[in-house]
């Protein structure tokens, strides 16, 4: 099936108009439709078509890889040879890779349809497209079996459909696509219509379908809006959420049993040669401890609204951000994954693990960077980011301690094991206190019990830190195992103890969250402002770099140093925790590390953090060149070796007027079958009673036509004139007959 004249050109123009590739679309349309006006044709063999298909396939793969590795999609292809501005990619990041690939399909497949248009063949053998068929043919030929018959396909209509689909890949703001699509569809269907029915009926069906379609698409939009208004929380359950939450950190405090963490490598740190590697990578810090009702749900919250994130503007080179203006002594390259996805833009998002005292971030490929007052830096960007962090002692990203900041907290009544112990909240439960000094009411008893044993003046930071460090060092052990505790004190009617209370007074073992939380609360009890920090501990060296595993996730306390006006790290977890965690490592860790490395390399490639993408696409250029050379050089060689073959064969009698009669009869629905001889066909055609009177002259014309075509001596001038006149007369008569 061939497309009607100019349909493909119109489809390409439509595609160009809709996708802002108008110039490309117009050029392609002119080249493609130009085949109707020029007699230039190539004699492509099956192998040539295969090579052209290979070019298209490679082009498609190249585009696919590029679109896959660049969230901006192939529309950003112009930025290929220079370093694109990451900030400028924010808008393009929402473009889906698949959509981008589809939009480019008409360009990718253009060479193939062009080859068909400018070839001497009407159809392209299916074996050039289908690997299975090609393999089957080759296998049959190799084994000496009869090769199955070749089947051909005209690719015009599939290409037309691809153009229309590609034209639809854009966020539509009006109905131009709809009406253009309908017009092109009418054009395409006109030649396919059944002659049995009147044109009026055909047009009526189309109008009815398009009107219903127009109304239907609005209904479709309304349906989708309705679905979107359904309970968003229900849908949210299906959404993927992972990574650290800057607003809240749910702890494992109070969980029973063993906490198991994965040995998967999450972060890679490569310190500069003359730098001391960072000890901790902090992701977030929190101020308010919330002990959950019952025995679970203990969490740290970031705090009030002033902790909301503020955008950070990059420096002029668009990839460097200043967090704190200061002198940075250390420098390290950090590579980490952004594992969540933004609800608004759909792009990967995550908190950056940063060394304590980070002042500047360089070469950060983030689209958007935001920071809160508690030192959490949230990045939106590719799924894997690699950047340089400059850090050093002194000021940190966190907002300084503000003694005047006051917030009201409601101390919830103690939970009880029976209903009699529970009561409603009273006004005197509400306390107003600085968030960096807040201690939940239910933790007070245990903290008082511990602190009362020390002789530390209120608000003396060095003494408080020393006392706490000694306390944990002498009495506590690290453990990831928690047994079921007896919460209520035996023989008393007191409220049951909290997990932190139990940890401090009875169990004396726990994991880092216990230590960090208890440290923060004890410091606050002693009048020293403190915060709770989460992140990773950096300790495992692997070659030049340090690897940080998921099980290296850690929490510690931040203490306000009034002298240096900065928050400093204070980790009271026994140092043995690293060895104890390492003991839990899988025996197959080497294998899993290898797998992690492959995953890391792929992620680098996937998220455009390596140069492989550029090399790969540049590498495709010589392959295209080689294939094009093979196609055209072969033809040149063939023409040189077979000079006679190039000359066009002119068969006698091809200008016979009988062909006009054949055409006319075909228009009357009397087409000649593919294997039908002319005489058999004429016999069948003359069965039509309307043509009865033309039977005799037609037989004479056929006889003369046969002689003209096949008689080596041809026709005499008189007979040739006779054939011409008789055919013209017969044509007139056929035209006069009703269909």
């Amino acid at each position, binding site marked *: 099936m061939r497309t009607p004249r100019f349909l493909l050109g119109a489809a390409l123009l439509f595609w160009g108009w809709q996708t802002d590739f108008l110039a490309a679309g117009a050029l392609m349309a002119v080249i493609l439709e130009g085949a109707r006006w020029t007699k230039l044709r190539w004699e492509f063999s099956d192998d040539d078509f295969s090579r052209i298909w290979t070019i298209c396939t490679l082009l498609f793969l190249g585009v696919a890889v590029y679109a896959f590795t660049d969230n901006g999609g192939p529309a950003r292809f112009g930025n290929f040879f220079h370093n694109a501005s990451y900030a400028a990619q924010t808008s393009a990041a929402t473009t889906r890779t698949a959509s981008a690939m589809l939009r480019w399909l008409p360009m990718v497949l253009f060479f193939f349809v062009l080859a068909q248009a400018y070839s001497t063949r009407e159809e392209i053998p299916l074996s050039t497209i289908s690997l299975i068929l090609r393999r089957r043919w080759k296998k049959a030929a190799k084994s000496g079996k009869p090769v199955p018959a070749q089947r051909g396909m005209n690719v015009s209509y599939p290409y037309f459909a691809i153009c229309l689909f590609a034209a639809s890949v854009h*966020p539509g703001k009006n109905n131009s696509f709809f009406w253009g699509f309908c017009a092109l569809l009418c054009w395409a269907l006109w030649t396919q219509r059944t002659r049995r029915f009147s044109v009026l009926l055909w047009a009526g069906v*189309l109008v009815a*379908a398009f009107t219903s379609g127009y109304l239907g698409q609005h209904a479709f939009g309304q349906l989708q809006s309705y679905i979107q208004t359904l309970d968003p929380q229900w849908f949210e359950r299906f959404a993927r959420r992972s990574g650290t939450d800057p607003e809240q950190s749910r702890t494992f405090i109070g969980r029973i049993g063993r906490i198991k963490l994965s040995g998967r490598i999450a972060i890679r740190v490569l310190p500069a040669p003359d730098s001391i590697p960072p000890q901790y990578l902090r992701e977030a810090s929190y101020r308010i401890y919330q002990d959950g009702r019952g025995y679970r749900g203990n969490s740290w919250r970031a705090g009030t609204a002033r902790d909301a994130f503020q955008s950070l503007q990059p420096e002029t080179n668009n990839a460097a951000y200043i967090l704190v203006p200061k002198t940075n002594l250390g420098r390290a390259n950090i590579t980490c994954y952004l594992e969540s996805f933004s609800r608004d833009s759909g792009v990967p998002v995550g908190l950056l693990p940063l060394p304590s005292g980070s002042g500047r971030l360089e070469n950060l490929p983030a689209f958007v960077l935001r920071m809160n007052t508690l030192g959490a830096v949230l990045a939106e960007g590719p799924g894997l980011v690699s950047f340089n962090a400059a850090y050093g002692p002194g000021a940190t990203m966190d907002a300084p301690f503000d003694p005047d900041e006051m917030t009201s907290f409601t101390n919830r009544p103690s939970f009880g094991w029976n209903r009699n112990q529970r009561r409603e909240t009273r006004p005197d439960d509400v306390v107003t206190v600085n968030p960096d000094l807040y201690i939940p009411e239910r933790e007070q008893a245990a903290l008082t019990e511990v602190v009362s044993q020390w002789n530390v003046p209120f608000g003396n930071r060095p003494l408080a830190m020393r006392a706490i460090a000694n306390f944990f060092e002498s009495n506590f052990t690290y453990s990831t195992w928690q047994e079921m505790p007896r919460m209520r004190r035996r023989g008393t009617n007191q409220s049951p103890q909290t997990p932190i209370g139990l940890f401090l007074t009875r169990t004396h073992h726990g994991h880092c969250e216990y230590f960090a939380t208890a440290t923060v609360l004890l410091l606050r009890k002693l009048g020293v402002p403190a915060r709770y920090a989460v992140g990773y501990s950096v300790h495992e060296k692997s070659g030049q770099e340090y690897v940080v595993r998921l099980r290296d996730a850690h929490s510690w306390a931040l203490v306000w140093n009034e002298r240096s006006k900065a928050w400093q790290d204070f980790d009271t977890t026994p140092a043995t925790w690293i060895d104890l965690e390492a003991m839990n490592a899988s025996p197959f860790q080497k294998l899993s590390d290898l797998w992690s490395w492959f995953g890391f390399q792929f992620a680098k490639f996937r998220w455009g953090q390596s140069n492989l993408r550029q090399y790969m696409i540049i590498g495709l250029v010589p392959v295209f060149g080689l294939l094009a050379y093979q196609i055209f050089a072969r033809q040149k060689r063939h023409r040189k070796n077979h000079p006679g073959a190039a000359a066009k064969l002119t068969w006698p009698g091809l200008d016979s007027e009988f062909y006009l009669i054949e055409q006319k009869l075909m228009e009357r629905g009397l087409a000649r079958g593919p294997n039908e001889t002319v005489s058999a066909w004429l016999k069948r055609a003359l069965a039509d009673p309307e043509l009865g009177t033309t039977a005799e002259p037609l037989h004479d014309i056929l006889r003369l036509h046969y002689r003209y075509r096949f008689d080596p001596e041809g026709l005499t001038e008189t007979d040739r004139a006779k054939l011409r006149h008789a055919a013209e007369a017969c044509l007139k008569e056929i035209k006069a007959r009703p269909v």
Partner: protein
Amino acid sequence: MTLILKVLYRFYRAFSWLRYRMRRRLTPAGWMVLIALLAAATMGVDTENTVVYQAFTPMLFLFVAAACFSIVFRARFSVRRSLPRFATAGNVFNYQILLRNLGRKTQTDLSVLENLADPRPSFEEWRAVQIAREKKIRSFRFDQPRQMKPFRRVTIKDAPIPAALPNHEVEVEMQMTPLRRGIVRFDGVALARPDPLGFFRAFHSLSAPQTLLVLPKRYPLPAIALPGIMKYQKGGVALASHVGQSDEFVALRDYRRGDPLRHIHWRSWAKTGKPIVKEFEDEFFVRHALVLDTFIFDPHSEAFEEAVSVAASFACTLSIQESLLDLLFVGTEAFCFTAGRGLAHSDTMLEILAGVSVCLNKTFSSLEHLVIEHAADVSGCICVLLAWNEERRALIAKLQSLGVPLLVLLIAEPGQGERLKRSIGPGAPERCFVLEAGRIEEGLAQL
């Protein structure tokens, strides 16, 4: 296991029904619109980044409108089909359908399709094919044998009907390719009318039940000097109405090993340069046994089909050479058919071979008993076997010990020829050949 297979069989029936219906109903343009619809439905969900949904709705309504036009098609026609008596598997042939328009309106743009009887197999047959396929699948190999369509018997191309005037008869030439031997049952014909948009076809069915016997494919055999000598036949002259050793001279023929020297026609030898013997009518004559092995697990095995074809080739050729031929095989029971010398023609033998199927419920020993029973009467034996294992070796050894001259043809599955050749040990008869399915003609030419 059977329950799972039964569920799968139900799926197979439903899916093949759907595929059959859709292939008939939808035109190429209809298929394109359907594929486009599915693509639009998949992509149209994302209304923020694409406007595919704008293409989906008009296409959907066009499709539905076209489908509505294909619900009813009324026409008055009478039909007559002129089929040949036999067809041969693999050979394309044309036949005619005569349609008379009994209505008052000229019918145009119609096409005709054949309505064949449901070719879908019973559960047992389907299961046997699936199990046989499972056995052929080789683990960790991408290059699995190609899945054939074992239940498809014929392909018939749709043919356009020329404009049919009222009360006029039109002739439509149909092209049919029989794919397998056996009986093809026609239920009737269907007249198809496209809808105004050309997506769907509406059908009007006409009853025209008929059957066609598709004979096995035959290969040309080279001039094979078949083994064996003439033997006394119990049927006597009545059976030997043509060729034997009585005093009645019948004809001259080429010398065969074992012919008495006194029958040599020296003049003809002198003329032709090769030994020629005289043939006489008598109850002593050549009688060959053609043993067909039907013991294979796959009911639609390619090797088995080729074995039947080889047997059919011998059945045709031997009849021409005017000897008696006993066809021995085991189907539902042990069969022995004799053809030649006025008993039955090769057509009958081919008809029998057209209906032969594999034997799944008996053992090879039943064929062995049948062959040994007949061994005393036959001059020579042609064995068409499907494997070379202990049972078959034992049969051949027994025939050799009885002094029956043998021609053993082993038919291998495609690509298994060399393997089978290697498995033939030293005990094999002198004339034992391996023919590989798909390359049988080549193998036969080398006999």
